[in-house]
């Protein structure tokens, strides 16, 4: 069984925050009137201390097969992906394999990255999640196709609603720290233990209804903390 969740320590969280937000500014107010991707590429945003944002690295890989950019991205994300896979019960050798597999997918699929749809950490997380299902659980990962003729598009009035995804990632990380432990633990277990809420209820001895209502309360809180960004 996985051991209890190692809590984020404040130093790690702050470090991670600054890696994502290379500008040392705290994004308090969001001006939704600006075209988002342009705003995020504002002059100065990408040359803080010579470091490039992770989103810039992925775009450099897509634009010109930029190997140094990939090496930088790998050095940051691969050890975190390995930690994620270990938490999900993979043995170290399989975890390394899935990390290699996922990062190779990042290299090959970089052109499909769209920072208006997802931040770098989110996009890489979804790739690792899917590669794990494929390689370790040996199942397919069914997903909708954005260009499916049967897909019901978003109503026209929300067509411009672009999510500030890197801000969402940072805001969510802060928000989950502010949840009561009984709620944040369940959310972490949902991502890191490969258990259904029913199995979480059995493993924790909590009634299923309690698990469901705590998860719903936690998700509601996280929504409230990010609704202004969507």
């Amino acid at each position: 069984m996985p051991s209890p969740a190692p809590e984020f320590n404040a130093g790690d969280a702050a470090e991670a925050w600054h890696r994502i937000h290379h500008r040392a500014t705290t994004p308090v107010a969001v001006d939704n009137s600006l075209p988002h991707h342009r705003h995020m590429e504002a002059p100065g945003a990408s040359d803080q201390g010579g470091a490039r944002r992770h989103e810039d690295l992925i775009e450099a890989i897509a634009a010109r097969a930029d190997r140094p950019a990939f090496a930088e991205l790998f050095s940051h994300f691969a050890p975190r992906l390995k930690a994620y896979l270990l938490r999900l019960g993979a043995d170290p050798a399989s975890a390394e394999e899935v990390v290699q597999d996922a990062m190779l997918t990042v290299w090959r699929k970089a052109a499909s990255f769209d920072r208006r749809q997802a931040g770098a950490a989110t996009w890489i997380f979804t790739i690792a999640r899917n590669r794990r299902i494929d390689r370790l659980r040996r199942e397919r990962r069914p997903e909708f196709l954005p260009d499916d003729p049967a897909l019901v598009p978003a109503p026209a009035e929300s067509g411009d609603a672009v999510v500030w995804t890197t801000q969402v990632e940072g805001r969510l990380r802060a928000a989950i720290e502010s949840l009561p432990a009984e709620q944040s633990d369940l959310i972490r277990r949902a991502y890191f233990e490969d258990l259904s809420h029913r199995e979480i209820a059995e493993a924790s001895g909590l009634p299923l209804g309690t698990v469901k209502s705590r998860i719903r309360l936690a998700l509601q809180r996280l929504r409230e903390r990010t609704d202004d960004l969507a």
Partner: protein
Amino acid sequence: MPDTVPAFHPDPEVLLAYAAGSLDEAGSVLVATHLALCPGCRSELGRLEALGGALSAGLPPAPLAADALSAIMARLDEPEESPPAPTPEFDEETRRSVPEPLRSYLGGNLRDLPWRWRGFAVRELPLAIGASATDGGIRAALIRVRGGAALPAHTHTGVETTLVLSGAFLDGPSRFGRGDVATATSADDHQPVAVPGEECLCFAVIEGPLRLTGPIGRLFNRFVRL
């Protein structure tokens, strides 16, 4: 017909499990097919995936094997393994009624599939989806019900989740139309009825064996496994 937005959605903890990657394959097919029909849930999925990104990127890094970086740099020019299998062509009815990813699991057009009759007004097509299909824990099926007809009354030992693909059915006071997800637990003894005038096509994922209730149902139990 204008697109309408679904009124009934997967339970929040089920969408969370799909975002986290812990939902079984059959349940994931149902959720992802609902997502194709529900812009609101697609938006919520984006938030839940961002949460996964934030949590996984916030984990304390685990040291990699010493040669991990050089190993992957050496692999960047490898050709991609096999190109994805070509997707089969479907007829207009199938493409319109059944969004991806469910469509790819059908194996043919709706009109050509080996439907099995279940009573006078109900046809069923079991689908083998994922690893759990072989161990018997979770079953998935397409179900067509003639307009105005009732499904056999039944209860289940586990949860039954139904996604409406075309037509509509009434279950108690609720009307479930295209894209709607109905979730019934073992506590529900229910008898959904298809809305008259149009056949209702559904995709159902059922955990645990079904138990039919009512006099006809009890007879049914002896020789069918719905």
